[in-house]
């Protein structure tokens, strides 16, 4: 309500607090819908007259395709199209880094689950049955299944013509041959983890009159999908329009293409809308997983506990296609010593092709595996030195001004020692009173009454990690935001339009908060994400609040500038003297000049801006780079674990975390990220592993691939600190990944402390504890 008769307010009369800005925790716009089950996910998409697509997949991890006979499938009633590699209109290859994966297999299949043919039919069941009628004649070949062997044994078959190495990267710093007083070594393995998102891969493609196609889908990165899809469809990217539909989790598993090209091919061929939705089993074959790894480590230290050297060989099994393997090798090697200051480093990393399921992006990309190894090593070293493991870590912690193994000087806070001290000070759970009957719900096995406390021992363990934020090694990493400010029914309304994927992390809320703070308006709407605005890059690498947040900030500031310029002209005051506050335009001299809505009138102000973070540079052949990565984030965990040594059961009793987030743009979301990341790290520590034998996944279901339930996840003390990064918008530091990384080694350390077992593999199961 504007009262034109009232005298101009002076600034001190203003209620200038626009609620829900940066630093607050406003309600998520999607929250209530999701909790009530009203949120529309991409699997709920529906169009009049639509067909259903289905995908025929290879049953063999390695085979030559002699022939494909689609005749019987094509003739079956209700089937509208059956497509094979021959029908791919454009380039039958795609990939995020190396373009090496066929849209549909041509003469060979390289993993079990590889797409071979497509069907569109009037009912999903008709489509699935038609798949059974496609005759593929395979000559089955011996699969390559061991990544370490593949790295060194040239006699193995080549999975790709160029050989089996996707990327080899050494990192050398100081003297790689140096010796030390105390040396510990170990070999560590990490199983294949699944992202286990709940919303399966799904999309709806609608052919357009202009010869293009509109695709509604769940993804992490619209523009990268579009680029790859357009090339495969042989269409101008402008004719491939993509719109984000409700995403049911991602965690990296939606970075690579799954059904995108397939569903568009079927729609363009049939001229009808086509929908593809994977079921849970197909989803296990339809997306990449976390790279399993085998890692050899050697740590040397002085008797006082100063690290002298770290040497390591890391083998990552990339499976049949490259996907993000090059980045995994980059992250794994550059971060391979952990958040420690080490003078002499020699690390070699191999990312390999095998005939195992393709592995790619997953939360903590490439940093999860070495963190398990180097933190296990730090505990071993502490034991060898008879030192407190936290003290050893603090003593060697990297800090601002230190140089990483790649030669990069950290020019922002790196409060590793502080995080360790803080997490150690968080309250511990009460030990069960001696002699008292324990509450079985608190024991391993929980309410199922498995343990009665006889063989139960408690252990405490710590883990700390480093993760690079944003794209690295010379990638031009940017995001785009379009912000439009207009007067709607007498009130200013900001509309924020980006292509950045809300995958559950709360990005929609963060964008609203930034616009509120920058434009001092209450109402901010988020435009549906689509490709009609510039790229945002992927919701990965903990980067969206940084880069898309930066773009929204920049676009808002550009809008504000124009608004103030208009005001300056109208009121004859210098723009430099004007500011926004509580929905009004205020002059330093004369107080409130006008409501924002008034100045806007019927005009909208719209600005589009890109935000690019500081340049990064590739690694050279010794792994050196002035700035390989733009930012690093750190978290520390403490786990308290009870283990029933008779039954081999583990219960994580408490899991605490201290993390530096630079600036908590939305404190509640930050805590949510830390809790969720920690749960995913707990899963890797004690239960999650895709079992692969002879190239085949043995447990492609949530009955057989176990993820933690609410009963497995303990209470957490979460301690968030804000040591702003001067280079980042608002000082933010990526939040999503670190807690996934440091939780796993902390839990395993606690199990070791309880049992005295070595434990060199995650997940740890009962078989590692008893017998």
């Amino acid at each position, binding site marked *: 309500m504007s009262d034109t008769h009232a005298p101009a307010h002076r600034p001190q009369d203003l209620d200038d607090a626009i609620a829900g800005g940066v630093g607050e925790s406003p309600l998520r716009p999607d929250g209530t819908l999701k909790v009530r089950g009203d949120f529309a996910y991409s699997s709920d998409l529906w169009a009049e007259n639509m067909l259903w697509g289905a995908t025929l997949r290879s049953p063999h991890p390695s085979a030559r395709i002699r022939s494909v006979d689609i005749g019987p499938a094509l003739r079956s009633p209700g089937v509208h199209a059956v497509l094979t590699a021959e029908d791919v209109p454009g380039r039958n290859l795609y990939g995020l880094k190396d373009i090496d994966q066929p849209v549909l297999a041509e003469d060979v299949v390289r993993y079990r689950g590889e797409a071979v043919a497509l069907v569109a039919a009037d009912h999903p069941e008709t489509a699935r049955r038609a798949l059974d009628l496609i005759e593929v004649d395979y000559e089955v070949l011996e699969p390559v299944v061991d990544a370490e062997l593949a790295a060194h044994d040239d006699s193995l078959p080549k999975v790709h013509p160029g050989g089996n190495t996707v990327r080899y990267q050494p990192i050398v710093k100081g003297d790689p041959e140096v010796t030390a007083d105390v040396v510990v070594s170990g070999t560590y393995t990490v199983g294949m983890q699944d992202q286990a998102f709940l919303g399966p891969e799904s999309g709806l493609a609608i052919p357009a009159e202009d010869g293009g196609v509109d695709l509604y889908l769940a993804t992490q990165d619209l523009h990268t999908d579009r680029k790859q899809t357009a090339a495969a469809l042989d269409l101008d990217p402008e004719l491939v329009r993509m719109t984000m539909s409700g995403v049911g989790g991602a965690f990296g598993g939606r970075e690579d293409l799954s059904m995108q090209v397939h569903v568009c091919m079927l729609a363009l061929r049939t001229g009808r809308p086509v929908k593809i939705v994977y079921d849970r089993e197909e989803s296990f074959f339809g997306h990449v997983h976390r790279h399993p790894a085998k890692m050899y480590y050697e740590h040397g230290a002085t008797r006082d506990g100063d690290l002298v050297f770290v040497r390591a060989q890391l083998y990552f099994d990339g499976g049949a296609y490259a996907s993000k393997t090059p980045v995994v090798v980059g992250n794994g090697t550059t971060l391979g010593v952990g958040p420690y200051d080490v003078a002499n480093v020699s690390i070699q990393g191999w990312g390999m092709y095998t005939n195992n399921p393709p592995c790619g992006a997953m939360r903590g990309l490439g940093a999860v595996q070495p963190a398990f190894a180097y933190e296990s090593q730090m505990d071993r070293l502490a034991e060898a030195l008879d030192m407190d493991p936290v003290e050893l870590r603090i003593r060697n912690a990297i800090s601002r001004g230190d140089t990483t193994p790649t030669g990069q000087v950290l020019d922002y806070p790196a409060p590793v020692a502080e995080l360790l001290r803080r997490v150690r000070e968080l309250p511990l759970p009460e030990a069960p009173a001696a002699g008292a009957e324990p509450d079985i719900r608190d024991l391993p096995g929980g309410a*199922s009454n498995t343990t009665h406390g006889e063989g139960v021992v408690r252990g405490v363990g710590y883990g700390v990690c480093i993760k690079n934020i944003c794209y690295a090694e010379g990638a031009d990493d940017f995001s785009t935001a379009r912000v439009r400010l207009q007067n709607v029914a007498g009130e200013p309304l900001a509309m924020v339009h980006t292509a950045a994927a809300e995958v559950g992390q709360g990005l929609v809320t963060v964008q609203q908060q930034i616009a509120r703070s920058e434009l001092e308006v209450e109402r901010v709407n988020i435009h549906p994400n689509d490709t009609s605005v510039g790229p945002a890059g992927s919701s990965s690498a903990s980067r969206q609040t940084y880069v898309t947040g930066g773009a929204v900030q920049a676009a808002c500031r550009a809008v504000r500038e124009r608004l103030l310029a208009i005001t300056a002209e109208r009121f004859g005051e210098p723009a430099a003297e004007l500011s926004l506050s509580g929905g009004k335009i205020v002059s330093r001299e004369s107080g409130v000049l006008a409501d924002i809505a008034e100045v806007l009138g019927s005009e909208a102000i719209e600005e589009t801006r890109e935000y690019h973070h500081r340049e990064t540079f590739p690694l050279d052949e010794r792994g050196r780079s002035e700035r390989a990565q733009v930012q690093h984030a750190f978290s520390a965990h403490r786990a308290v674990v009870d283990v029933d040594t008779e039954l081999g059961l583990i219960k994580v009793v408490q899991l605490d975390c201290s993390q530096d987030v630079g600036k908590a743009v939305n404190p509640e979301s930050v805590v949510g990220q830390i809790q969720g990341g920690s749960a995913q790290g707990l899963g890797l520590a004690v239960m999650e592993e895709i079992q692969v034998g*002879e190239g085949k996944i*043995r447990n492609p279901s949530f009955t057989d691939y176990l993820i933690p339930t609410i009963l497995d996840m303990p209470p957490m003390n979460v301690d968030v600190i804000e040591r702003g990064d001067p280079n980042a918008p608002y000082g933010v530091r990526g939040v999503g990944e670190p807690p996934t990384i440091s939780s796993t080694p902390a839990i395993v350390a606690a199990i070791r402390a309880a049992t005295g077992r070595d434990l060199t593999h995650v997940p740890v*199961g009962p078989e590692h504890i008893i*017998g």
Partner: protein
Amino acid sequence: MKPFDYQRATDADSAISLVSGDPEARYIGGGTNLVDHMKLGIAEPGKLVDITRLPYDSVESLPDGRVRIGATVRNSDLAAEPVIRQRYPVLAQALLSGASGQLRNLATTGGNLLQRTRCSYFQDVTTPCNKREPGSGCSALEGWNRHHAVLGASERCVATHPSDMAVALAALDADVLVEGPDGQRTVPVTELHRLPGDEPERDTVLRHGELVTAVELPSLPFASRSRYRKVRDRASFAFALVSVAAAVELVEGTITDVRIALGGLAHKPWRATEAERVLRGAPATEETFRAAADAELAAARTLRDNEFKVPMTRNTLASVLRELTRQEGS
């Protein structure tokens, strides 16, 4: 999934004649196992005869002290039944430790008994499996066999039976009432499931078309002191790695009678007769418990990934016996 006919039976006779007259026909209870198998291509019935409307949905206490459980009683309802909770706690506990609330609301007593192995090769139609395709070979022998059998297995098949409920029933000496084209018969639950031997494709001794109508529990007063313990990879909603169902009768520190069955170890719920023999008449001491476990597990043969099941079973059994005898004595 292959197309199929669906019929809802209204009386047992017509259900039996519908199924026994058609080799492709199958009964369907809650469908929580069979429908999964149809989706995976393991089962391809041409006709489904839904038996959930047959009058087998109640639990009756019989005059002679026995309890009759209708074949279509849902797992949730059975677990909540006061007579089961009081007189046969082992059965209520076993039921509640299985699957999830939603699944238990659908799953029937008959279907639970007749659910098939979770062997991952059995569930993957692209791999050899003697149970699914007789003569094709057993992929688990040299493959991922963490969940597989350590007792009573054969060269042809090392699968385990996944049911928790059936383990409790085996301990309780329950009988299974079966009706077929040739009339009724009673099969002790311990004899319902087979060992794999040379015919792993046959899970049970039932003939095609035979309908489970009920399960009967003997009066067994000491079963009111009974326990089901299930060891698994997470706190809930996971199949047993190992489980123990036990009931103990204790008189002045001596075990006068005992029933034990083990789950997760064999192609059938494993009645631990050797352990029972050692325990019967023996003092309730730690040594006896260990000796009993060792006697039962002497025949264990482990595979690459399942060695842990032996110590896990030994420790679980000892722990359950400790608990039951402590309870009884105090």
